[in-house]
């Protein structure tokens, strides 16, 4: 029982900590932090698409190396990147890809391993690692509200952007509520509860959270209405691109075009 509650608390705290650290890094003044969020969103998304579309391992490896260099230049610690992105992706995708080394039909190179199997596994892991690193770079170097505002350049409806922003904010409110519920339960629990009781605890906790969430949405709606919300969302501040941002855009543009050309 204790271990179950502790595990749940640990996963909730980890998500909270991760968001706090991301925010801290996003304001640390590294190379990517100084780039206009619109340029970053467009360029890094384009690079992720190129990674997904590439048919050459060398192009994927080169983009991974460039992402690592950008991380260093943006004050993102390698250890953090490894702990948050590289190792989890390696374990998860590696577990999926490993049997392919043996199961994929093709030219055998010994121990039941085929050349095509090795390439398939390398493609799968390489793509997942590189795309995850690029997406982590975007989030680690840009405050979330700026990412959302930048989404407008993709003609994403304003209302969707507003919902994404509110969802992000309420994740932490509900996260805090869930954390307090589990901590309160932990402080009252002595001994080991049977499995069925643990299941009941989890579903009751989910039920309480649901009730609170619905109640909160009603209160938020009333608060929004009282401030004049009639379904229209307006943004007060706009980004302004500087000369350096245009240079970054040109550089990323070249990189995307070259990677796409060589990766065909």
């Amino acid at each position, binding site marked *: 029982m204790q271990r*179950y509650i502790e595990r749940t608390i640990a996963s909730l705290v980890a998500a909270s900590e991760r968001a706090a650290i991301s925010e801290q890094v996003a304001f640390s003044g590294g190379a990517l932090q100084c780039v206009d969020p619109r340029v970053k969103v467009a360029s890094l998304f384009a690079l992720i698409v190129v990674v997904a579309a590439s048919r050459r391992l060398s192009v994927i490896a080169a983009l991974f190396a460039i992402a690592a260099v950008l991380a260093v230049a943006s004050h993102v610690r390698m250890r953090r990147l490894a702990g*948050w992105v590289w190792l989890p992706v390696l374990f998860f995708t590696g577990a999926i890809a490993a049997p392919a080394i043996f199961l*994929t039909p093709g030219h055998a190179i010994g121990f039941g391993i085929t050349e095509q199997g090795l390439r398939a596994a390398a493609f799968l892991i390489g793509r997942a690692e590189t795309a995850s690193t690029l997406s982590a770079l975007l989030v680690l170097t840009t405050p979330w509200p700026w990412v959302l505002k930048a989404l407008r350049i993709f003609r994403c409806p304003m209302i969707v952007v507003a919902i*994404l922003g509110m969802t*992000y*904010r309420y994740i932490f409110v509900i996260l805090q509520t869930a954390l307090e519920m589990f901590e309160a339960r932990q402080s009252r629990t002595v001994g080991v509860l049977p499995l069925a009781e643990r299941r009941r605890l989890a579903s009751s906790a*989910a039920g309480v959270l*649901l009730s609170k969430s619905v109640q909160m949405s009603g209160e938020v709606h009333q608060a929004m209405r009282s401030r004049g919300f009639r379904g229209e969302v307006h943004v007060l501040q706009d980004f302004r691109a500087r000369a350096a941002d245009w240079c970054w855009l040109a550089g990323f543009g070249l990189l995307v075009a070259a990677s796409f050309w060589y990766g065909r």
Partner: protein
Amino acid sequence: MKRAFNTQMVPLLSVFAAFSFIIMMFNLPLPGGTTGHAVGVGIATIVLGPWASILGISIALIIQAVFFGDGGITTLGANCFNMAIIGSLATYAIYRMIAGRSALTSARRVIAAGVAGYIAINLAALAAAIEFGIQPLLFHDASGAPLYAPYPLRIAIPAMMIGHLTIAGLAEMVVSAGVVAYLQRSEPSLLRRTAPGAEEGSAAAANLRPLWFALAGLLILTPLGILATGSAWGESTPVPTPRGLRALSSFWTAPMPQYAPPFLKSPGFGYLLSAMTGTGLIMLLVSFAGWLIHIRSVRGRPRAG
């Protein structure tokens, strides 16, 4: 989509997407000592309805993929299609089909939620497995090496389904059924949106339902009495009737003596008819008594104003 976006839906969707995101983090203890994570699509559909659930779960998946790097950006479309669209629509169809017009507090709704969550998450997994399985056919390099998912359908489908039929499906079932059971006790109005025409029966009426089923079962089993040999213990034992009572024996003659109405030739059918008549009379009497009690309670209630 525009119709769904009235002003109330904006905070409701936001908060619900945040709720789904948190639910995905819960470790759920499952039979066998393992744990699993639910998607929350079952309970989101039951509370919000299918269309709002599609949007809510998609938003949770977008934040999970973009901000927490979990799920993939280029696979977002497929993830939303599998989990949000297939999951929500399947949950809604199965939940409505099983729950029918039962009362909001009925145990049938708990079962419906559990079954709907379980089947919906497995259908979503099957869709994902098919998407994986056709990739080696569509995308491979000159040497024949698969460029994306490397396994054909015959491997992808069992690999995905084993985990979902056992762990992930059970996790979704536990959350869906558990939360519906909790809401029935604490806030049944939240279940109203996907229960049009639900009976307004109280919890007490819902609790009586198993007894009605048991009674119907006993009635169906009545013919077993015809098959039994001999007679019930003690019933045929001759007992000397006291002289005083013997004088009253002609005062009342039973219309169906010995469970055999005189106007029927077949003793078996007479036995059945007796059972049905007796049960019917008891139900009529109880209903009449209930009606009298109801009338008295309504008259005794203080009037407003």
